[in-house]
């Protein structure tokens, strides 16, 4: 029984990381579908929402371009757009869309960036600099340390062994993403601009074509096409609007969770928490992103935003492998923190390597 569950856990874990990755498997949602695989600059790796250093502000982050400078470019797409979508509490239809677009870089490699809110320009400046936002807040776009941390090789080893060899995860963890960079867009806004509660997700577009979307970490890779039957399903998932998530995907999520050893009731509970695929934000109770470890009351922060230091892999291992039913097979990859400390001040992600 343990072996079966372990196998299931391994499958879940693979999915977390590999998906349909063509070449290099990356982070929570890195390179997760056939369409995004050749548009690295529009490939969303992670999104975050946390309390700013000034507690009256909230920070929204979208990271793209895994292993920027190695397998991905160090410049944002000049033909695509990056959107941070906010819907009112209880709604999954965005009423505030912050859209960042970029020009080609000049001789100094800096790109001009323009940020619009619902079509109206509210900030403009250059990558690598702090840009003031009209109405309050600030914007940063540029290369930073990848804040994600995960023992990717240990994970793959478990999966590739047919889920018989967990040694790669139970031994000393090695953070595959240590020393790697991503491109990040960091938007700090007054809490008033967000409201007391909202739902946040990010999308990227090439022209008018939706390329990628992300809310909670790794849902696409964990729950969609886990048995590699039809990679196109991953694109279909990416094309789904959050408002359509429950109707389109909740049966799929419950089936996968049950396969992984969760009871029907638990599978339904988890699915209800995960879908629609957005980060819920309760601005009064968001965690902060500082140092290298998660601080604060986890109970308040789980499913409320996502801080940089939050160990989402451990949480997902615990939940997916039956933790809520009291029999978690795995609860950690033994990589518990980022390789460098988060500064705790804008733009919050550590300087690039």
């Amino acid at each position: 029984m343990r072996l079966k569950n372990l196998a299931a856990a391994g499958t879940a874990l693979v999915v977390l990381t590999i998906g349909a990755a063509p070449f290099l498997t990356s982070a929570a949602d890195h390179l997760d579908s056939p369409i995004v695989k050749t548009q690295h600059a529009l490939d969303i790796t992670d999104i975050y929402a946390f309390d700013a250093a000034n507690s009256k502000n909230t920070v929204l982050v979208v990271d793209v371009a895994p292993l920027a400078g190695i397998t991905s470019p160090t410049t944002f797409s000049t033909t695509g757009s990056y959107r941070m979508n906010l819907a009112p509490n209880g709604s999954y239809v965005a009423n505030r869309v912050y859209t960042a677009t970029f020009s080609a870089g000049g001789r100094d490699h800096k790109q001009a960036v323009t940020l619009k809110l619902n079509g109206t320009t509210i900030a403009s400046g250059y990558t690598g600099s702090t840009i003031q936002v009209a109405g309050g807040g600030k914007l940063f776009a540029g290369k930073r340390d990848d804040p994600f941390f995960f023992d990717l090789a240990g994970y793959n080893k478990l999966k590739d062994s047919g889920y018989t060899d967990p040694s790669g995860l139970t031994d000393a963890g090695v953070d595959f993403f240590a020393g790697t960079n991503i491109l990040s867009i960091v938007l700090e806004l007054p809490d008033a601009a967000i409201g007391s509660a909202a739902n946040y997700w990010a999308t990227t577009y090439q022209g008018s074509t939706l390329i990628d979307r992300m809310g909670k970490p790794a849902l696409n890779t964990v729950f969609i096409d886990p048995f590699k039957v039809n990679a196109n399903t991953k694109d279909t998932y990416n094309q789904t609007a959050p408002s359509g998530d429950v109707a389109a995907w909740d049966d799929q999520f419950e089936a996968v969770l049950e396969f992984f050893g969760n009871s029907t009731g638990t599978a339904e509970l988890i699915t209800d928490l995960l879908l629609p695929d957005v980060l819920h934000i309760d601005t009064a109770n968001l965690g902060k992103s500082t140092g290298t470890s998660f601080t604060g009351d986890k109970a308040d922060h789980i499913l409320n935003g996502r801080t940089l230091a939050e160990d989402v892999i451990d949480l997902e291992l615990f939940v997916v492998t039956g933790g809520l039913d009291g029999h978690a097979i795995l609860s950690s990859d033994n990589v518990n923190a980022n390789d460098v400390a988060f500064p705790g001040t804008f733009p919050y992600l550590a300087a690039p390597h």
Partner: protein
Amino acid sequence: MTTIRRAAPRPILIIAAAIAVAAGSYGWAVLHGQRPAAPLVKPADSGGFPGAAGEQTDPAALAGVDGRLSLNDQITFWAERVKRTPADFISLTQLALTEASKARLTADLGLYQLAQRQIDQALALDSRYGAGLRARAQLRFALHDFAGAITAAQAALDRDPRDDGARGILGDAQLELGRIAEATATYAAFAPASQGPAVDARLAHLALVTGHVDSAVQLAQQAYQEALANPEDDIVFYAYQLGETARQAGNAALARRSFGAALAARPTDLGSLVGLAKVDASDGHPDSAIAGLRRAAAIAPQPETLALLGDLLELGGDGTAATAEYQTVRAIEALGSTAGTVYDRQLLLFELDHGGATDALLAHAQAALAARPDATGHDVVAWALYRLGRFEEALVESRFALATGTRDARILAHAGAIELASGHVDDGIRDGRAALALGPALDPLTRSEISSLVAGR
């Protein structure tokens, strides 16, 4: 026939040849990932045509596109990670793949072999690592172990039936082994989401191999246009492939334009340097052709490049310089092992056209055919039999080669000569003229030989 005068081989070139010989199927390696590797661009301060002062001759030292590190720096990045965590088979695989990308640009067989050993190490750490299995197939293919490539690609597909990267290598290897129906079926299984330049380029190659020349050019053009629309596709490869397809179709103008586009983006692109030189030679610009081949040989002394360079020098009356090039080809030949495997057909054709046929050469050609029974394999055996005066047997092999539908200029030219020698005069004149009509598709030496045979009829 050109006469060979023995001269001392040039040590530097020979050493270079020993360690840096190009894969005969240059360019196809780019297709062996699920998507082609990122293109390289020349740095802003290295303007000018290839060979201009200050030209960077190590393509792996050029900065990568859109801020990516140069291939050399990427290799350092992955190597440091492997050194820090030897059990990190993902980084080890990436190291090997990056080295393979460099080997593709520099035609460095030794580097391909190093990458292959590293992939084997990575798979020893995780025997079912998908990217590792796919990389193993890619490297087997690059080193012309086509049966090994098929086994490795199948292993990757067994693990993940949707792995279209592995599927591409599987089809490519089947095609190289003359298994056209199998390759066609493999290519037909690409998922809709994988459609794009990498698939169209393969279909173009398949069309060319089976003699559907117009379709081949059209598909190669389509692949190039698709690649232009995606900044992350390797424009240089698709421009090269379009040039090569157009050249083999006899379309000198399109070939020249396409090779020019490739070289504008990557002045050191080997395939395009050699391809453009062939067009130059055909268009009556031997000096430009010789200059282009010298540039290519300075990057990687491939036997075909050196033999063609020697032929052009010989035809221009510089027998001494020609002999030096031929000697280098023979030095590569003498090295045997991997270079001999990768370049077996190039080397056999060189000997048949520059030395003289022997029973040993014929046996070698027959062994090569057994290992790789495609149209070229049959053609090389046919040509060896022809050189030995065994015309009827040559005719049989020639017919096997043509049965694939190929319109390859050299195969047609050889068929024409064989048909004339075996008394099938009408067929011989038809095929000989068809070959001559293909302009830049036919090398100068073969053109000269076939012209004189057909002219007398």
